[in-house]
């Protein structure tokens, strides 16, 4: 989130032009839990051209609320969420690379997830959707990559949850990735991260929808409450930095025609938010309600909670032993959700495992979401472009 901008994503110009989301069908996979899930649909987009040697593919990995539409302009005129980074001549240059972006497993933007129809019950899965992991999401991305005829990816790149997936790719599919860029991520979700996710899910669970009687398989129920909006508001607080909030909102009041406080909770005590920061969060929550599914939110945050490459023994060096990709770890000094110290833990373990690792801590004030902020794009462009060029 850039200071002084209310755009959800970084400034973009849609330079790549029109794109259409495509869909690939697969028989299914056995999840880490042992459950078989199939058939599967994967929503994806591609930008650029695959080289005859099939060696220029870059896989983009989105964060919690992202989708397959990463660049260009879709049928609804919407710009991709990382359009500022992906396109002709941009940091991830579509004149050079064949860029693939897919919606993650469990998502609600075209890939199989809780909104999909369970063939067994002919109803949407809802909360009966099997619990999944980052590894499962990556395995499904693997099916797509294979489907596109690519044996080895030039690069996998993602921020936040996407960074976790980039790590999974490097650890679990070492022969299939030449390099990985891990942005604002961690090798294990911290108890603090688990706690925030838990509060978010609790907000959803507290909705009246939760108590709708539904004994049938499929858990179809009406979505009535604002739990998802509350979850998103909590999330948004963790994605921003104190500094950004101060600069963007300060203690500014929303109602400019009133001098000072209103000393009122509004009509019928239904408070709509008096401070600008409140109204911003309110807006974020409401718009998220319109574009995201609460059960996807539950399933994906659970997968994030489960993410722990260290394992119970707390041994990251061993976990990293299989990596053969060149690694680039990026952190932001204002990110308090996945702070630099977590990136440093990864960097030290990679160094201890004698892996090819570069690490850049960027001084950007926008918190966890800095990789999507306008002001961060120039630096990120130079870094990612330079790194991709150096990978052979």
């Amino acid at each position, binding site marked *: 989130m850039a200071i002084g901008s209310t755009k959800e994503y970084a400034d973009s110009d849609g330079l790549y032009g029109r794109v259409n989301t495509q869909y690939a069908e697969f028989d299914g996979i056995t999840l880490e839990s042992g459950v078989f899930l199939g058939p599967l649909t994967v929503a994806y987009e591609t930008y650029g051209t695959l080289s005859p040697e099939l060696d220029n593919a870059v896989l983009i990995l989105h964060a919690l609320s992202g989708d397959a539409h990463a660049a260009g302009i879709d049928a609804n005129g919407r710009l991709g969420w990382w359009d500022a980074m992906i396109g002709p001549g941009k940091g991830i240059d579509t004149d050079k690379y064949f860029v693939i972006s897919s919606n993650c497993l469990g998502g609600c933007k075209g890939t199989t997830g809780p909104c999909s129809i369970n063939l067994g019950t002919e109803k949407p899965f809802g909360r009966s959707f099997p619990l999944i992991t980052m590894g499962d999401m990556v395995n499904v991305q693997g099916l797509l990559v294979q489907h596109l005829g690519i044996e080895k990816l030039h690069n996998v790149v993602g921020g936040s949850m996407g960074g976790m997936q980039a790590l999974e790719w490097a650890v679990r599919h070492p022969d299939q990735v030449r390099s990985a860029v891990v942005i604002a991520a961690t090798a294990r979700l911290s108890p603090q991260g688990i706690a925030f996710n838990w509060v978010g899910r609790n907000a959803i669970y507290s909705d009246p929808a939760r108590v709708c009687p539904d004994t049938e398989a499929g858990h179809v129920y009406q979505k009535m409450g604002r739990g998802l909006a509350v979850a998103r508001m909590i999330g948004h607080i963790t994605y921003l930095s104190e500094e950004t909030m101060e600069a963007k909102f300060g203690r500014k009041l929303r109602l400019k025609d009133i001098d000072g406080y209103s000393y009122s909770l509004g009509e019928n005590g239904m408070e709509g938010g008096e401070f600008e920061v409140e109204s911003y969060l309110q807006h974020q929550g409401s718009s998220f309600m319109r574009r995201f599914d609460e059960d996807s939110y539950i399933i994906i945050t659970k997968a994030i909670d489960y993410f722990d490459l260290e394992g119970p023994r707390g041994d990251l060096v061993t976990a990293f032993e299989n990596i053969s990709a060149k690694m680039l770890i990026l952190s932001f000094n204002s990110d308090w959700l996945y702070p630099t110290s977590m990136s440093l833990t990864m960097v030290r373990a990679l160094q201890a495992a004698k892996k090819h690792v570069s690490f850049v801590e960027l001084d950007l004030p926008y918190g966890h979401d800095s990789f999507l902020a306008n002001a961060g794009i*120039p630096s990120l462009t130079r870094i990612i472009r330079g790194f991709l060029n150096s990978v052979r």
Partner: protein
Amino acid sequence: MSADVTEIRTPFHKFEVGFNIIIGLIAPGTRVLDLGCGSGTLLQRLREEKDVEGCGIELDQEKVIRCIERGIRVMTLDLDEGLEGFPDLSYEYVVLSRTLQQLMNPERLIKEMLRVGSKSIITFPNFGHWKVVFEYVLKGQTPVSETHPHPWYNTPDIHRLTIRDFRAFIQEMGAKIEREIHIINNVPYEGAFWANRRAEWGCCLISAA
């Protein structure tokens, strides 16, 4: 697109000389860790001239980005926090050029260098140079010279050491100076007479004894 880099380090006056000395000390095809690597000039030359697989450590963001743009492996780390995570003897050479005098705790880092590298190369401005000493003695003021270009109240060079200091320090640590090269009037000398008074810079190849 890239902003100007301000060189807060003591300029390695006629810079090439120092680089040439370091490059001359490094065997081809080895692994080199360059502490305070700046924008990667040395590592790039080592890659081109000696087929060296290098890695740099640098705190300044702009310089780190330049390294990445040059295709040089680099990490944003604070040298004052040591080399945690770097395995013992994982590099043939660890280089600390023009940075020793700026560290909070030089002793701790040099111990780390000796642990991580088979050999270490350290270059530092010599505070024992006669011009510096003259200024100190005659004017009674902290000298500002080519090798120590900043006034005392605003300088990154928080340690002022002489070549003789360095020798004693290495001996005290139980390490060994294998080679000592001095830059005198911009020319490198090995075994120069009265180096402690004549050299602007000391360049030493050291190893754990």
